[in-house]
């Protein structure tokens, strides 16, 4: 498992510039367009997790990879773990950025607002990956990646469309109102975590039946 994680981290270096640019864009957007900023960060996390699978598949690499000493179940688990690690990294960055931004610009830190954004990113990310991972495990390589990029695109279109109809600010307010209820926030997070876990079980099943 550790060997696989090291492999993914090493492969991640190939996308580091894209990673940093998207994170900076996300952080710039967040104060003015919190939902789009959060979505962008979600996209970064998802793209890296899925991207690592595309790298594995490059040039029929999976055939050799699956002869190495790990089980298929461990491979699936590692991808979900790697994504969680990536997500946590972005989550910590986002938290620090928000606190520092508010302290400097607003001269005060609204911890509820920070946690709201953090919750949105966590929920978006977990739900997004819960859908994307099984698709990537099933179709693999570029086919899966294209399907997943299409999902992200559709997500963005929905957000923009809803934003144009209702205005993003009102959607943000509405969600903020809902999420301000701690119990609702926690409920959403729990649902997202459950979806992530169920998705992992699906992916284990898919990868165990795959031929290389």
């Amino acid at each position, binding site marked *: 498992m550790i060997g696989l994680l090291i492999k993914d981290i090493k*492969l991640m270096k190939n996308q580091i510039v894209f990673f940093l640019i998207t994170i900076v864009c996300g952080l710039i957007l967040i104060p003015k367009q919190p939902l789009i900023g959060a979505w962008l960060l979600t996209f970064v996390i998802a793209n890296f997790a899925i991207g690592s699978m595309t790298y594995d598949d490059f040039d029929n690499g999976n055939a*050799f990879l699956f002869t190495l*000493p790990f089980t298929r179940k461990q491979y699936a688990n590692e991808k979900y773990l790697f994504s969680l690690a990536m997500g946590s990294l972005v989550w910590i960055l986002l938290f620090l950025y928000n606190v520092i931004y508010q302290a400097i610009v607003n001269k005060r830190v609204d911890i509820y607002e920070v946690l709201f954004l953090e919750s949105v990113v966590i929920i978006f990310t977990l739900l997004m990956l819960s859908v994307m991972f099984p698709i990537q495990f099933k179709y693999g390589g570029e086919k899966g990646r294209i399907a997943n990029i299409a999902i992200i695109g559709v997500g963005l279109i929905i957000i923009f469309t809803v934003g144009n109809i209702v205005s993003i600010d009102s959607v943000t307010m509405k969600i903020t109102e809902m999420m301000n209820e701690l119990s609702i926030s926690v409920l959403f997070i729990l649902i997202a975590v459950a979806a992530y876990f169920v998705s992992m079980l699906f992916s284990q099943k898919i990868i165990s039946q795959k*031929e290389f």
Partner: protein
Amino acid sequence: MISIENLQKDYNQFKLECSLKVSPGQVSGLVGQNGAGKSTIFKALLGLISMTNGTIRIMGKDISNLSAEDKQKIGVVLNDSGFSGYLAIKDIVPILVHMYPFFEKETFLQQCNNFGLPLNKKIKDFSTGMKTKLKILIAVSHKASLLVLDEPTSGLDVVARDEVLNILREYMERDEKNTILISSHISTDLEGFCDNLYMIHDGRIVWEEDTDVLLSDYAILKLSQEQLNTIDKEYLIKMTKETFGYCCLTNQKQYYYENYPEIVVGKGSLDDFMFMMLKGENL
């Protein structure tokens, strides 16, 4: 070490049906034309594809029950697959350190240096020969007791092929129980290296023989029509029609040397024997 019993794999236009055994300390070769089914056997053996039927055991264990620890004892080279081309050797080393408890890091790096493999260059930018050497070095670097090598010499020039075979000879000398199953469509690579050979054709093992027996007892007889009519055909296996007469494959060279001194008994190479087995008529 390896036991394949009644392995069956059905594809739309291809059916594999075979059994084979590789004993500990043995080098077994699998020869056959492109598309004969060699890679399918390897993929089934390594659990990369499902089987329609049959049983495969490695080190006494059914392959469906192989644990990560069991897989640590197996070194693999696949002709068309390896570590991601986006990694460099320096990236692979820590991966191997964590995957294989017996990974010999210093020896591996030394051998990479000996073979002129750059540590910082991405594998996708390596030549075919460099990629192959790297795959072999990885396979022999972690004290595996079994090497499964699918076409490891494919695409290599004569010098590189010799270097690769030397690495494998050194591997076999390290421990008497070390075992290799190797495939190639370049049969001369296997002739001087394997203890026994399996020939596969159209998804079936059509011939199995110890290399010593092959080289000492097999021969190609060159016969005229008259000689063919009069010769004892009991030890003739296959026959082809040639412009000068007939070529016949025998597994009793000495018998024909002694009893028919007038006929030409050609020593023949593994390629010749393969050709006769695949294209010759039964007698």
